């Protein structure tokens, strides 16, 4: 066995998994609080990628793209803020009016929202693939073997570290702040939380906004990492991230991250050792297997069916 190759796939898989994990958190938080799949979440991630790309182009036009840390911070900030508003808008338009209605209605309106956002970006920004020049170049050579050098690029370090930091920040946010307490309260019993003075509407809005902010970071990292984006990237990434959320146990934050990492690793190893064409099939296959044998996921709690 070629350990160098294995190590390289491991690094790639972890990077990819970090990105999936960030998107998956949005799914898991929304599902936790309103018990519904946010179908437009993939498009939010796509919008994050576009916002960061355009921010970069504006920086370039303004002549400050030479100062790398400033550019990256600006991209992160602008993309998080603007994309969050889209997350807020999705909740406000497609979910809030239908909250009391039956479940399928909200799902369908979210699918409509997803189609709308996709075509909105396609029309306003064009259908062609948008290239992005690499900003963070170079890397560390971890291991040199006869025919293969194991590379850990600086970009990969940035992605993994940033994901880790965001994970810690959001876990603390949910565990320690009053906002997090309100969220956990709404998750357990929305009516009761409302009776006890929690602003349920605002809490749900905030959940969507937080999910969108994390997805926008994922979108920005994909823009920097792969260097190409288009209006269609949201769909597949969204489905895979949802798979990750289910795999980790929907409703559980660490579960989403773990699921994301696992999906990333599976995809990297599958395309590294088996066929690259069928890597999506592998992901969905895993999803089916998990749902059959452990529907509550790796870290989730099994749901008790009540009459």
């Amino acid at each position, binding site marked *: 066995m070629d350990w160098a190759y294995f190590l390289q796939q491991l690094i790639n898989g972890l990077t990819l998994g970090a990105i999936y994990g960030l998107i998956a958190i949005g799914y898991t938080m929304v599902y936790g609080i309103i018990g519904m799949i946010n179908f437009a979440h993939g498009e939010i991630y796509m919008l994050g990628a576009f916002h960061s790309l355009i921010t970069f182009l504006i920086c370039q036009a303004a002549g400050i793209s030479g100062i790398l840390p400033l550019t990256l911070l600006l991209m992160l900030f602008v993309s998080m803020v603007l994309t969050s508003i889209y997350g807020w808008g999705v909740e406000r338009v*497609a979910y809030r009016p239908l909250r009391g209605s039956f479940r399928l*209605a909200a799902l*369908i309106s979210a699918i*409509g929202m997803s189609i709308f956002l996709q075509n909105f970006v396609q*029309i306003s920004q064009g259908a062609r693939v948008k290239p992005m020049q690499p900003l963070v170049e170079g890397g560390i050579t971890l291991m040199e073997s006869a025919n293969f050098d194991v590379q850990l690029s600086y970009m990969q370090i940035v992605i993994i570290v940033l994901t880790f930091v965001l994970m810690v920040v959001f876990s603390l946010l949910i565990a320690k702040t009053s906002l997090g307490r309100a969220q956990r309260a709404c998750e357990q019993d929305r009516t009761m939380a409302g009776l006890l003075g929690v602003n349920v509407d605002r809490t749900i809005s905030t959940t969507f906004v937080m999910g969108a902010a994390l997805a926008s970071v994922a979108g920005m990292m994909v823009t920097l990492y792969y260097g190409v984006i288009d209006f269609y990237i949201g769909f597949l990434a969204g489905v895979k991230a949802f798979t990750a959320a289910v795999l980790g146990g929907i409703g559980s934050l660490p579960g989403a991250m773990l699921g994301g990492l696992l999906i990333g690793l599976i995809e990297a190893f599958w395309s590294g050792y088996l066929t690259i064409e069928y890597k999506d099939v592998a992901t969905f296959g895993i999803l089916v297997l998990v749902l059959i044998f452990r*529907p509550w996921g790796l870290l989730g709690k099994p749901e008790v069916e009540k009459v």
Partner: protein
Amino acid sequence: MSSAFASTRTNGSEVVKELAFFAVVALLMSVMILGVETVDRPTGLELAVRWDLVLIAIGSTVVGRFALIMRREGMSRIVQALLITVTAVAVFEMFVRFRDMDDRWASPVVLDMAFGSVLSTVVAIAFVAIVFAIAYFSMKEKGAVEVDESAKLSSKIQLVYRSNTKKIGLVGIIFFIIFPFLFGENRSAIDLATLVMIYIMLGWGLNIVVGLAGLLDLGYVAFYAVGAYSYALLSQNFDLSFWLCLPLAGIFAASFGIILGFPVLRLRGDYLAIVTLGFGEIIRVVLINWYDLTGGPDGISSIERPSFFGLADFSRRVPEGSVAFSDLFGMDYSSMHRLIFLYYLILALALVTNFVTMRLRKLPIGRAWEALREDEIACRSLGINPTNTKLSAFAIGAMFGGFAGAFFATRQGFISPESFTFLESAVILAIVVLGGMGSQIGVVLAAIVMIGFPEMFRELAEYRMLIFGAGIVAIMLWRPRGLLSFRDPTILLNMSQKEKVAGELK
């Protein structure tokens, strides 16, 4: 009522604040995606600024929000009058357009007519003003009560619909049967009707799964694809005729339904939705990558067109040993014959789907589906096997998807994985849910709204899907239970209770 209402009325400064808030939101949402365009240049991406679009976005958001505030404050007369005016203009536009439907690419007729000359502009403005005035003054200021009344009106429509379902269905069937005689010479009308009919059939097929059995299937297009590819492959590799392949395609699709359904049907609703979505994608990925069998992304072309029940052929040059359709009936050759035949074929297939569904609803298995949809635990305690019951719904729904797929393949003569994307599944599901789950006539209505109207506005090609997406959201907000919400059980213990339950369900 009015005094209680007055106290909730917002004052002017609050309205301004609210409008300002939404203006800022619109600005932030549009400033980059709309305001800055990324242009491809040989040197890389460049930016082009489009402030006008941002202004339009902000303007329309503020106006829309203002309309909503007016409505909330009980001053809905202006909003309604505006809506009626816009609808009148749109209906007029559609009326003019329908007279010559082949000219789909023309720009909006109304605009051309209105701004053609000074006189016509004056006339157009006067027309709009008169419609607005009539609409405004013919309505009473109703305030908050208005909401109740519109609900009452819609339940009245429901009642009329319910008591006349059979008649409405019959009129619909007769209309669809004589349709080719009305538009016989209009190629695009027949094409469009055939397309709508395909979706009606798919909607009816999916209705068994979603509407009757209550299983959320987001990958229905997979069965459609299985049906289409099984016909295409059987006809190309084994030279089997369409009439032999049609049942085979249904059987293949149904077996795929069973294979997929068996492991996953124990899952709860949302999980089932995602698994079926995944399955739909798997089928598509396999179709793209299994180049030797399916031709990959290139698809399969020159698929055999159907013959007239194996008796006669529709092509101009008839192959050796078969008869031309036009000769068989002693008519002149016309390329329309095949189109009209295809139309009747899909009409027949769709009606079979409908008939079978209606019969199944009255059989024990149909009753079990509906019972399962309402309460799974109760069903289990009464001895219904949920997995087998769901599996039968899944397989029968899949079978009709397979039939529709075989028809699609023979109509197009060309299939590729591109025709079987998730979007198709979403469209079919949207038709079922918009129609009102379980309602057969609702599916027809929704298919016409969702497929027919967008096809008519082809000139808006690139905006079509945008409007489609927004339309789904709007219809869902307007009628969350579908255009014809019709989800009460087929049978109740005491039939006289039916109306009462229907009233409560509303």
